[in-house]
């Protein structure tokens, strides 16, 4: 049951996979959406410490929703939050073209960053920001070292500072 959109066929068609295939074509003008805890906004802007959820901690890249198949508020829906209700979150957005394409590590290795479509049954737009030395989403994911992660967060923060986070009221 959606919280931020009216329940109906258009919601089901948009948010659920409904047998649609994976689509790895990301346009430069496509937005990626990410939840952010409202209580950690400073002067209305996100702080790198709290969106280091671009953390690359796990074996996969970090989760976002893509605008080609979703509205920004869909990233707050239980369907896209493993069934959880997320009322105290805002939505951050970044253009695919604003992702740093490549970040050099102090070791001399460069890490390349790409978006990759990873649809879920109840959240078709689910995607990940993928990282490895090759910049090839078909190659295994590599967790970048801390200096690369920090530079990545810093560059994202500079982008996020240019626009306000999106705040949504529940539709019901």
């Amino acid at each position, binding site marked *: 049951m959606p919280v931020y959109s009216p329940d109906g066929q258009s919601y089901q068609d948009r948010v659920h996979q409904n047998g649609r295939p994976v689509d790895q074509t990301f346009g430069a003008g496509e937005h990626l959406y990410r*939840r*952010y*805890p409202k209580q*950690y906004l*400073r002067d209305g802007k996100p*702080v*790198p*410490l*709290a*969106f*280091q*959820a671009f*953390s690359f*901690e*796990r074996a996969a890249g*970090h*989760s976002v929703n893509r605008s080609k198949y979703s509205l920004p508020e869909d990233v707050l829906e239980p369907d896209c*939050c493993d069934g*959880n209700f*997320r009322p105290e*979150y805002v939505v951050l957005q970044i253009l695919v073209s604003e992702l740093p394409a490549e970040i050099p590590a102090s070791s001399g290795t460069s890490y390349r960053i790409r978006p990759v479509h990873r649809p879920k049954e109840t959240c078709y737009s689910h995607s990940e920001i993928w990282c490895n030395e090759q910049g090839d989403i078909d190659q295994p994911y590599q967790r970048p070292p*801390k*200096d690369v*992660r*920090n*530079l990545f*967060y*810093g*560059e994202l*923060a*500079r982008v996020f*500072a240019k626009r306000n986070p999106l705040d949504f009221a529940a539709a019901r």
Partner: protein
Amino acid sequence: MALLSHAQLIDYDNAERRRHPAIYREVPSSAQIGPAETNEIFKQQLLSSSHQSRYLELEQAFIELRDQMARLRLVRENWDSYGASRPDEAAFSAVEAALRAFRDMNVRPNGIMPSAEGGIGIMFTEREEYAHIEFDNSGETWVLTYGPDRPATTWQLPSRNADSLREAWNRISASLQS
């Protein structure tokens, strides 16, 4: 010979105005002002004196930072909804020691926040310039700084002792002023 001059006539209107300025609406009357708020007067005095006192200003800032530290202890696992760990005890101890060091240096951090990678960050801002020192649960300490017209830079601190923090602050301070 007596000198005779015109006697100065008293200006009764002005005299009355000076005796009763509220009646003549030259100043607000007590009825217009309302009852004197003693607490408010003390508060205003305290605020005006604190603005003049770097010591009091720092004391108030560090009280607020300690409050933020207390609130951090309530942070739960997955606080960012993407699986972030809560800060561990080693991170708390490191940040408490760092705050003591910054207080001794008369350096005022702007806030404390959990790190989504697991740990705690101490933040410093100046206009739109930003920096933080992150005390990871893993025991590492990293600095990140950037500005609207300045790309991000990062480095690792060799240790968490006062000398290392002082050196970090010197670099951070320079970058915040750039």
